[in-house]
């Protein structure tokens, strides 16, 4: 496949280090001139303490895709304001070390990308050719990661209350698609609308929309007890 065509068409141009790293991995230059170490520390903390991340990591292990920090996560410098991505070709979650500076943000990005990885693991998701699949995973990720919480929306100066969560999910899914595919806004909106109901109501593996840490803890508790649950239905 033509490399430049692929870069432009699939959003790889937002992640220049996917093609060539600026500094050698583990080098002194990397630790002096990038936020790599801070990113690694925040990532470790997120994986160990965020109930959202812990649930997703368990679910992925159960599905046969154990996610290892060294293999499946990569802290890199990215273009623009993008916070992260999931690269299906290399089975890696990319975290934008130059754009993530707070632990809460890291927790959210890790959750968001793990949802993509989880979908990749449990279903035949055609990331490159099927826009409905892409839209569905983006809707789920915006819905379940806390991207669209009331406080996050207020911080973006998007003030809305009644059913605003759904508006936010639609909007963010749309933006995510437009960022990585060269299609018109109308086309993207049409695709999002087609799959919205199905994908908004798919809460796997949480079993609910986790609006808060408490929701996520309850979801994690349910997940850990799933054997007992299904055995006694």
């Amino acid at each position, binding site marked *: 496949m033509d490399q430049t065509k692929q870069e432009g068409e699939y959003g790889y141009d937002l992640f220049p280090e996917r093609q060539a790293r600026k500094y050698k991995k583990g080098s002194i230059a990397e630790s002096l001139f990038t936020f790599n170490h801070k990113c690694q520390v925040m990532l470790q903390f997120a994986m160990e303490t965020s109930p959202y991340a812990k649930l997703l990591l368990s679910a992925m292990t159960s*599905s046969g895709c154990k996610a290892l920090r060294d293999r499946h996560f990569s802290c890199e410098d990215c273009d623009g304001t993008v916070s992260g991505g999931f690269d299906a070709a*290399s*089975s890696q979650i990319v975290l934008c070390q130059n754009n993530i500076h707070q632990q809460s943000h890291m927790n959210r990005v890790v959750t968001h990308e793990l949802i993509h990885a989880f979908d990749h*693991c449990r279903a035949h998701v055609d990331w490159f050719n099927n826009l409905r699949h892409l839209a569905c995973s983006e809707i789920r990720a915006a819905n379940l990661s806390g991207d669209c919480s009331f406080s996050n929306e207020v911080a973006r100066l998007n003030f809305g209350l009644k059913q605003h969560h759904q508006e936010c999910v639609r909007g963010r899914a749309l933006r995510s698609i437009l960022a990585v595919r060269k299609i018109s806004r109308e086309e993207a909106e049409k695709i999002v609308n087609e799959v919205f109901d199905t994908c908004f109501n798919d809460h796997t593996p949480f079993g609910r929309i986790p609006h808060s840490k408490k*929701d996520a803890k309850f979801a994690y508790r349910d997940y850990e007890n799933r054997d007992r649950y299904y055995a006694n*239905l």
Partner: protein
Amino acid sequence: MDRSAEISWRPPRACDNYWSEFRHCKSLWNHFHHYYTYGTSPSCQQWQEDYNNCREWEKHRDTEAKEALQRSERNRVAEQKKFTPVWKLRQDPPRDWHLPLNQEKPQDS
């Protein structure tokens, strides 16, 4: 076979879990989040009923309570599965998930 299943049955969740879900459902935060998501108030009655049935079973091994609880939980599971997925579920995880980096990998099917 049936008899041993009867003896070894226990509620799908610990009774305390039903109670904590009920309390969580009734909380102000949850009302807020539910309104923010669905534009309506949440209905928490079912959690309370499930808790009561769970306790009935624990205390008196009441068959009606057991069946009501099972019905309620099966309903919850059905609610989660009401939609037709846009993608086909896998039987096995992706072949290249565990491959080391910098190796030629086939395009994922």
